[in-house]
């Protein structure tokens, strides 16, 4: 599936704005991305396994807060950085 990477996280992906990755759940997907890009996951998911305050993740246009949500191979994942102040 395609994961759209916001600019604050592109230092991890070698400046790529989209990457292809696999995972049966959102959690699996983010762990797979962290394997490939070490440190990536902790910047957007807390140690208590919650999506951070100013991060939003959309699966096919629907916002998801639950990391256990199941994914389909053709899903489009958007990671969005939102409203953190000036």
């Amino acid at each position, binding site marked *: 599936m395609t994961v759209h990477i916001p600019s604050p996280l592109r230092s991890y992906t070698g400046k790529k704005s989209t990457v292809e990755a696999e995972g049966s759940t959102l959690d699996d997907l983010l762990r797979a991305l962290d394997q490939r890009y070490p440190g990536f996951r902790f910047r957007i998911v807390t140690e208590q396994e919650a999506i*951070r305050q100013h991060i939003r993740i959309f699966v096919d246009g629907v916002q998801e807060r639950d990391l256990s949500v199941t994914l389909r191979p053709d899903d489009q994942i958007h990671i969005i950085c939102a409203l953190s102040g000036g």
Partner: protein
Amino acid sequence: MQRPTKPTLTQTATGRVALLVGTRKGAFILRGDPTRRTWKLSAPMFLGHIIHHMVLDPRDRRTIVMAARTGHLGPTIFRSTDLGKTWKEARKPPAFPKVPDGQIGRVVDHVFWLTPCHANEANVWYAGTSPQGLFRSDDGGVTWEPFSSINDDPQYQAWMGTVQDGTPDGPKLHSILVDPRDRKHLYFAMSGGGVHESTDGGKTFEPLIEGLDTVEGFDPSVATFHDPHCVRLCATNPDRLYQQNHCGIYRLDRPSNEWVRIGKNMAQEIGDIGFPMVVHPRDADIAWVFPMDGTTVWPRVSPGGKPAAYVTKNAGRSWVRLDKGFPRANSWWTVKRQAMTSDSHEPVGLYLGTTSGEIWASRNGGTNWTCLVRNLPEIYSVETAEL
């Protein structure tokens, strides 16, 4: 309490000094020439990152550890082993343990304070976080683990309070101090939550708050009500500590447990409110503060718009105003707790950074001040790196 060895005397430095500057919008290094007269500012590093602290490892004089986060992204640590030319992210930044489902666990918002450990413990670092947590790295900052019992101790969690009880930018653990004679003798401070001491290498800590005032008559025996802003230990006399507290300036001479409010000897119209505290690298009777207005709604800017540092040369019995070179009026400066420091030259160099983005320096212990840099982002921390 017995101390096994004498402290290592701080040598007078003669080499180059660099200033490691953390700002709300990135990190900078300001490199001085050997005379400390001319300075060159680096390009911004991690532009847009919030850099709370950046510290050189004095044990190798090559490694720099930096506490960073951004507005969107969570906290992390960056490390450089070549004096800031290249950086790598920590493999495991400080994080609280995951709690079982159904419980509310704590989350590190940002790493606020970094302290390299004892001279004989290469690669060991301590970190203080917001909300209050104590962490340790044994590998030069690559991986970090919760340290000591205090992070999970119910009594300490009660003293730490909630996010609402802390400073506007979040409650913080800071001023992690290691006795140069004994690596097992540690101090730290919390805003809020008081000053604490360990003599068993961090296995246990006890409050060290006797003599400290509180606001509005709250019970001074309760650690929660204490807000130490910055605590410093004298390198050549580690039995002496100085503290800039929300409620004044204090000195503590061990083995006494009672802080003495030496800020009462400040000029009354100036008061003894502020954030930073700086101690002389070789003379435990000399310390500097940068007072701020603590009246009415607590503006926390230079009183009367006239910036000045104050020095004591007799352990706080009297204070002398140091303002030569600073603007004479209309300068409403705030200097945060990590944004004033000294070097080890003779005479001692002093450095401070303002929230309005200026760095000022004195090459003679604060007698004369010069502006080194203007127009930086809001300055959070200034640390000297003796190269």
